[in-house]
């Protein structure tokens, strides 16, 4: 599926395809012309994707073909052993996790899962966890803590689920407890926002020593649509809200919300799963390497001082 703003590229690519066909059919050598067009196409793409507006990045972050957590498990880990359930009656499928190896390092990997079809989304609830999901995640974090496994979380969620049961079972409390308990863990934590990083639902897995976002992912206090409907009283103003909220990688870096941006293949992760996986794996291993000699106390202090510094005010 091509996005609206990608249509000019499609046109150039069609032209190239036409030239190829023509050259094949007529036997004429058009390789020079094709090369020029391909070069132009590449330059144009670079120009386009490096200067996307927040509302356009939002579309890439939400692209239905974007790799999801299950893809990343296949792409970056080996020997994944899934661990199910919160031990209190529920196995929330919106959050999945288990032990696995990244490179030769055993880790605990936990993430939110968005489905790629309606059928899948019924299972994964569009990546919107219930309180039970956060409690399951915490169970896995504590397991990792006990056995000295570094924690890697991959986050792609439109937010924690807003529903009746979710409120009755303490959605807010479940997230809050995770924030507090993640602060106490003795092992390194690396969190990566891979698509949507919306609100407390994302933060509930992101109190980490290192927080990275993928190039076209976003991280925000509220979805641009939600913000527009409250502040502008008009959900259609979502693209203005997306600008105002400063949700993309470079802005998040500027305000020290994140520690780095993971480069995506040209056009976005969905154009090249393998390359995306390679890059992400490299970044995770680099991050884990930074923490390998730190003591439990150093890791906790590092996490505390990182979040302690956040905020801008006058005094």
């Amino acid at each position, binding site marked *: 599926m091509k996005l609206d703003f990608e249509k000019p590229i499609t046109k150039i690519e069609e032209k190239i395809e036409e030239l190829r066909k023509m050259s094949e059919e007529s036997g004429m050598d058009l390789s020079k012309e094709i090369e020029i067009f391909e070069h132009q196409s590449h330059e144009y793409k670079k120009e386009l994707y490096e200067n996307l507006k927040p509302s356009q990045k939002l579309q890439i972050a939400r692209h239905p073909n974007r790799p999801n957590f299950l893809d990343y498990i296949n792409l970056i880990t080996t020997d994944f052993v899934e661990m199910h359930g919160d031990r209190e009656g529920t196995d929330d499928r919106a959050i999945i996790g288990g032990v696995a190896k990244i490179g030769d390092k055993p880790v605990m990997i936990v993430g939110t899962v968005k489905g790629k079809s309606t059928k899948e989304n019924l299972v994964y609830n569009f990546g919107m966890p219930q309180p039970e999901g956060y409690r399951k995640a915490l169970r896995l974090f504590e397991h990792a803590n006990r056995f000295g496994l570094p924690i890697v979380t991959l986050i792609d969620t439109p937010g924690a*689920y*807003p529903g009746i049961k979710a*409120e009755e079972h303490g959605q*807010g409390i479940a997230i*809050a407890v995770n924030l507090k308990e993640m602060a106490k863990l003795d092992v390194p934590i690396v969190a990566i926002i891979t698509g949507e990083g919306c609100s*407390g639902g994302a933060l509930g897995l992101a109190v980490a020593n290192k927080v990275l976002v993928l190039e076209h992912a976003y991280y925000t206090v509220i979805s641009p649509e939600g913000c527009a409907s409250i502040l502008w009283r008009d959900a259609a103003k979502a693209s203005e809200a997306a600008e*105002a909220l400063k*949700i993309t990688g470079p802005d998040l870096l500027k305000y020290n919300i994140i520690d780095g941006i993971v480069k995506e293949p040209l056009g976005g992760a969905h154009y090249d799963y393998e390359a995306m996986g390679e890059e992400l794996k490299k970044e995770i291993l680099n991050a884990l390497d930074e923490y390998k000699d730190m003591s439990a106390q150093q890791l906790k202090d590092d996490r505390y001082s990182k979040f*302690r510094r956040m905020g801008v005010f*006058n005094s």
Partner: protein
Amino acid sequence: MTLKDWFETRKEEQIAARPIDPKIDDNIGKLWVKCFNCNAQLPRKELEHHMMVCPQCGYHFRINARTRIAQLFDEGTFEEYFSNISPADPLEFFDTESYTERQQKAKEKTNLNDAVITGIGKVEGEEIACAIMDFEYMGGSMGSVVGEKVTRIIEEALAKKLPVVTITASGGARMQESALSLMQMAKTSCAVAKLNEAKLLYINILTDPTYGGVTASFGTIGDIIIAEQGARIGFAGRRVIEQTIRQKLPADFQTAEYLMKHGQLDMITKRSELKSTLAKILRLHKH
């Protein structure tokens, strides 16, 4: 159920079913105040004498932070901390109005620098560090200032080995500071983790309304959670939930009573009993 119990329950249900957003300032400056629940016309003096609780139906009016402090702390014992911290506008946020204008208006309305007052004071002689939120300042929303002040008062308590009490009234995180607001949830919760490790008592008092980012961070990770009678408490707002699930919600949804039934609170306390309840809990943890 006795007839008296039935009347009590019915009264509570009526209070629970009231509309959600009555504002105390609708009544500011008036000598007579109309009760939002039972419509009784009440002389302001009498209402104030009853701690802004309707003497006829028990409806708890929303109160601001300064009134709360006056009601809760032993006279003259509350010392305010960190009052000089004021909001900036790092994102130069502009929706239909600029964030700086909104700050200015809120300041004029409340005479506060932001949506929380922090300090140390005594409750029936028991010394506590306390953060009291004010819903009148931009809906009690949490941005960098609220996060910083809450964190600082917790750190002050850690240094002085004091119990910490929060009294929340908030619509959630402040959108105008975007991810910076979101990070205040992490910052304050990490500070609470230190209270746990130091084994210092941490009590949350939830008042009407407590929502969103405050519910999902420092506001609900207390060792003991108390809700004031009639408070509405939730993570997502009622409208968002209705739009998501496309069905009507029960009238008492997200009331303190409703949350209590679902095991999310330790207790519900009337405003008139809040001080003595808090003092009792503080004394029981001192040994």
